């Protein structure tokens, strides 16, 4: 009797975090693509009319360009990105052993530049960094997201989940208030999505250019009148990690187009 009660208690405790959070079940996960109108979807579907692809092309050029005092190009170590980078972006943010914390794809690119190319890091949200990360992430298009599986990432996923659930800003809203509890409803005429980051970096019509997930998160924080974390802040990395693990199973779409 006591044995079964222990099993019950253990099971309850183990699943409590999942039960308490109103997380979207895997079957109900939907990409932001499904919330858009047909014209915006058409823009994403055709590679020759998707403005994000312009950045992927630029990234392809940068991939082969020698950089830094080591005079090496990405291609010199990684060869043809089509094979070497396939599936990579789908499991980012990933754990970096040396830093003992997760890093985003942008941060990994800059770490490579610093450690292997002896080149200066590219500024966050710069055209070159966006082009490179778009090119790399594009090689994972169609691959199911698998980020957050590494057991070493667990505390950071938890941190990201806490950030997602906590109310913030003058409007006192948590991410989950809209994106878990109210997706499919509308905010000021625009549909609220589930906030699944399947297509980053993406071409946002509002920006009229390509932008990263961090830019979008900072916009959201400004939107609820909270002080946004700086680019590259551990909080943004943890949030991105949580969001990607929350999106597990959805296929990557980079470069996506969103309103």
């Amino acid at each position, binding site marked *: 009797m006591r044995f079964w009660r222990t099993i019950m208690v253990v099971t309850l405790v183990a699943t409590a975090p999942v039960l308490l959070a109103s997380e979207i079940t895997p079957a109900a996960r939907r990409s932001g693509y499904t919330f858009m109108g047909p014209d915006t979807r058409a*823009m994403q579907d055709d590679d020759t009319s998707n403005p994000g692809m312009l950045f992927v092309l630029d990234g392809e050029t940068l991939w082969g360009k020698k950089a830094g005092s080591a005079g090496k190009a990405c291609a010199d170590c990684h060869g043809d990105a089509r094979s070497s980078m396939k599936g990579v972006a789908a499991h980012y943010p990933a754990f970096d052993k040396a830093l003992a914390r997760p890093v985003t794809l942008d941060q990994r690119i800059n770490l490579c530049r610093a450690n292997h190319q002896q080149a200066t890091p590219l500024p966050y949200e710069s055209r070159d960094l966006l082009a490179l990360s778009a090119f790399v992430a594009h090689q994972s298009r169609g691959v199911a997201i698998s980020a957050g599986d590494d057991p070493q990432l667990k505390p950071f996923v938890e941190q990201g989940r806490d950030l997602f659930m906590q109310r913030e800003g003058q409007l006192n809203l948590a991410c989950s208030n809209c994106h878990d509890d109210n997706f499919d409803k509308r905010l000021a*005429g625009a549909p609220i999505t589930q906030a699944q980051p399947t297509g980053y970096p993406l071409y946002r*019509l509002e920006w009229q250019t390509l932008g990263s997930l961090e*830019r979008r998160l900072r916009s959201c924080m400004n939107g609820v009148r909270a002080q946004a974390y700086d680019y590259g802040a551990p909080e943004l990395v943890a949030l991105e990690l949580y969001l990607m693990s929350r999106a597990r199973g959805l296929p990557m779409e980079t470069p996506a187009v969103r309103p």
Partner: protein
Amino acid sequence: MPTTRRQFLSLAGGITATGIVTLRPLRATPAMLNAAIRNVVGEAQIRTGKVKLDIPPLVENGNTVPMTVSVASPMTAEDYVKSIHVFNEKNPQPNIGNFYFNAFSGRAQVSTRIRLADTQKVVAIARLSDDTFWQVAADIVVTLAACTEEMN
């Protein structure tokens, strides 16, 4: 005095903004629109018909609105479309684009992406090879994006 939701929210958001703020101090007026049209058409009469404007009636984001404009025309050497001119009513400037064809264009149709600052009318005027002018107008609703971005 801000008169549109977009302008009001831009101003409100501008308090916390640094960097570029998209205020719109100028506005096209119906007079500017008519002047721009007369610039192209001169004193000629403009008939309604033949031209088709394909724009989503409710746009997802006014910054990038897909638009297709076309004219039903046989496109032969005797009867073709010389040009299509597109105008708007409320952007700071009345012109959107002018598109030039010839008898070998196959189809008098062009697609592009335009910016619309507010809910407004878009007008397309076609000039045929016989120098007659034909027009069509469409009313487009532009809503404000939920989280317009101040420079962060």
